[in-house]
């Protein structure tokens, strides 16, 4: 149990403008389950990519079986016995279970199906699971696909198995089954690096845990010497700087209320939004935040529930109904959902409310130009001209174009889904100032964000979601990173 199989030493990785990993050193021992813990952006994914050879570090070394490497390639990493099971499965959907498990091993001209199935069966037996070897993978449930992934790694004689959020697609009973397999592998001497957001799982399965925060190594602890509370405080232990602009305006009456809003998977939610308020929507990835706002906006069909706008019931079936009721959405992915990249800034800014500048079916180009120029001025959109294609703008300016499009539709309840993702620091500040002036003018904002400082700094009130349900509601006085993390992990 004490032999070291993998050590990363002083690993540093920076991308333009961001330090993803800063001087991180961790030692992994043979036959242990070692959990990696950290918030979004803490550097976990970068670290596993470096171990898998998908990303090359800028400094530091990786020591495997007493040999030191400054960097790995995917090929070398596999040859050294490292296998990764990513969140998105990496299986060939139209091949069978056996073919997937043994994929890439047969170097003969003809495939020996008998031998292959025998081998696949022996691996699955060792794991203690039963699967139809001849079934095409696309017909398997997500949990079964994951078993195939694990079996595939075992067939490659993995010595180190990295599992990235393995429990995400699984139900409770499937998780305990997966844990059984993990324990079996551990007995065989395989080291498992286990990444999960779910605290309770880590306490069930892991031997040791390492906490990363903002790209730095914080601490490695034995699981039996620590507690959820102390891990949470290690994860969030940052000081919040006061860079968020302060607002001092009164919050008014109710402008939007959802009663038992359901649909889009497993959403069922009640909440109220007030005039002049920024309501933060928090939760882990997959908690249903985006799904919820798409329901409100009419982007996906509702199954039940009522939406009230200014106290009156409204029927929102499509985004155009939401816009007609003054509700706008700034979507999560501005390139795929927000912008028409091949079209100009002025074209983009008018598309959601062409009615305002159309007379007798004809779009008035003069009015469009004037409107676009006004928004460029108001939102400080930096573009050589309003005729510039939006794909040539920076992320922050693209986001402002999407905002212009939404505001031009006379909206006063604006839903922001990850308003500053992938935007540089300066532009972030500008977006925050814009959001503040929007609520100061009496508009209301519903904001989804995975960025903790942003959530705490911008919100007047926070709703925390867990598995499509409201896990808790925090007023400004009750804001704490620990409390939000606890609620979003399903601990109340």
């Amino acid at each position: 149990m004490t032999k070291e199989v993998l050590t990363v030493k002083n690993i540093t990785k920076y991308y333009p403008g961001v330090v993803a990993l800063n001087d991180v050193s961790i030692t992994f021992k043979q036959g242990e389950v070692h959990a990696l813990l950290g918030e979004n952006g803490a550097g976990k994914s970068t670290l596993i990519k470096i171990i898998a050879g998908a990303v090359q570090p800028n400094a530091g070394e990786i020591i495997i079986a007493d040999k030191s490497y400054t960097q790995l390639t995917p090929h070398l990493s596999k040859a050294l016995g490292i296998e990764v099971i990513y969140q998105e499965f990496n299986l060939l959907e139209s091949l069978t279970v056996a073919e997937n498990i043994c994929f890439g091993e047969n170097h003969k001209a003809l495939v020996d199906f008998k031998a292959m199935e025998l081998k696949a069966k022996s691996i699955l037996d060792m794991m203690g699971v039963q699967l139809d070897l001849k079934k095409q993978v696309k017909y398997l449930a997500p949990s079964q696909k994951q078993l195939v992934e694990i079996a595939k790694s075992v067939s490659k004689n993995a010595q180190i198995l990295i599992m990235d959020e393995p429990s995400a697609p699984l139900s409770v009973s499937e998780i305990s089954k997966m844990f059984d397999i993990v324990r079996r592998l551990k007995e065989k001497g395989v080291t498992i690096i286990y990444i999960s957001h779910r605290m309770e799982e880590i306490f069930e399965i892991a031997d040791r845990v390492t906490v990363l925060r903002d790209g730095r190594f914080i601490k490695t602890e034995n699981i039996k010497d620590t507690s959820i509370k102390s891990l949470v405080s290690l994860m969030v232990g940052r000081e919040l700087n006061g860079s968020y602009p302060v607002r001092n305006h009164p919050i008014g009456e109710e402008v939007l209320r959802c009663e038992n809003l359901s649909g889009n998977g497993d959403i069922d939610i009640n909440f109220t939004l007030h005039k002049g308020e920024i309501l933060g929507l928090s939760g882990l990835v997959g908690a249903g935040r985006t799904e919820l706002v798409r329901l409100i906006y009419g982007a996906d069909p509702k199954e039940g529930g009522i939406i009230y706008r200014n106290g009156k019931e409204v029927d929102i079936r499509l985004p155009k109904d939401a816009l007609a009721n003054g509700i706008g959405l700034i979507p999560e992915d501005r390139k795929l959902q927000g912008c028409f990249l091949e079209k100009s800034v002025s074209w983009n800014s008018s598309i959601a409310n062409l009615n305002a500048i159309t007379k007798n079916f004809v779009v008035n180009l003069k009015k469009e130009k004037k409107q676009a120029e006004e928004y460029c001025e108001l939102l400080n959109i930096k573009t050589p001209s309003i005729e510039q294609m939006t794909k040539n703008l920076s992320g922050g300016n693209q986001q402002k174009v999407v905002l212009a499009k939404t505001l031009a539709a006379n909206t006063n309840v604006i839903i922001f889904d990850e308003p500053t993702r992938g935007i540089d620091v300066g532009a972030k500040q500008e977006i925050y100032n814009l959001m503040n002036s929007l609520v100061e003018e009496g508009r209301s904002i519903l904001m989804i964000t995975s960025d903790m400082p942003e959530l705490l700094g911008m919100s007047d009130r926070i709703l925390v979601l867990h598995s499509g349900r409201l896990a808790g509601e925090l007023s400004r006085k009750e804001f704490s990173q620990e409390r939000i993390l606890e609620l979003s992990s399903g601990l109340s």
Partner: protein
Amino acid sequence: MKNFELSKFLGRYMLLILFIVLCVVFSIMSPYFLSIGNFTNIFVQQSYVIVAAVGLSFIMISGGMDLSIGYQMSLVGVITSSLMMNFGVPTYLAMGVGLLVGAGLGLFNGFMANTLKIHPLIVTLGTMTVFQGLSYTLSGSKQIINLPPEFKFFGQGYIFGVIPVSVIIMLIVVLGAHFVLSKTQFGRYVYALGSNQEAAHLAGIDVKRMKLAVFSICGFIISMAAMILFARAGSAQSSTGPGTEFTCMTAAILGGISFTGGEGKISGLVVGVLLLGVLGNGMQLINLGTYLQYVVKGFVLLGAVGFDIYQKERARQVKKAVEN
């Protein structure tokens, strides 16, 4: 950088340059090519193709595709002729019914695309076969001859003795479509749909309704093309029409209407059709065999598309270099 400017210029005017080069080459090789008579001929011959291509361009710009337009023409032509000749329906009434049937066939395509939620390419592959079957069933594989002169006027007649009626119809359709696509709110929505369907949905555009509209418009315009074609032939049979879809598609792509939608202009489309027309006409005049003509046309399409992709790739790389 200067090189890049040149290639940008070429990209923008390549079609026109190609057109001029072809005209020069054919003028040198054949004494008959460069004459008013020959060019009028090309215009008359291509007018129905241009009309059909305009119909298709509505669908292509919105990001869809319609393989069934050839058999839509066949079916509309057969129905219209049959109404006139076998059921004694007055000519103009029969034509009116034909136009509505065309719009209905388009609507059906749009409805199927919405309901089945599969790409229109596949949907219209199916409906194409349906329309083919219906057309042959109605015509009984027989020719309907001696269509009335009022009908033939639309394909063979002249106004003031010099201007072909088919060319006038073509000009009206082209100008109308140009206006709708470039000036109106509806036109904006067509481009929005092709440029980014999800963003269009989130911008409050009723995507399903737009698809129905675009397919119906295409069907309507396609039946106008069918009228011209059948009127010119003077008789109707089910094998008239099919094949037009590929000519139109080729012309549209040559003319800069992107296969993925969201881009393209009617003016480019017209030049695209004329280019194919001139190419065909010129090769005929220099006595190149029909089958070799196919080979040349195919390579022209590959060349044009290849150059377009090369352009875009290059622009992307330049942008990347600037960003780094």
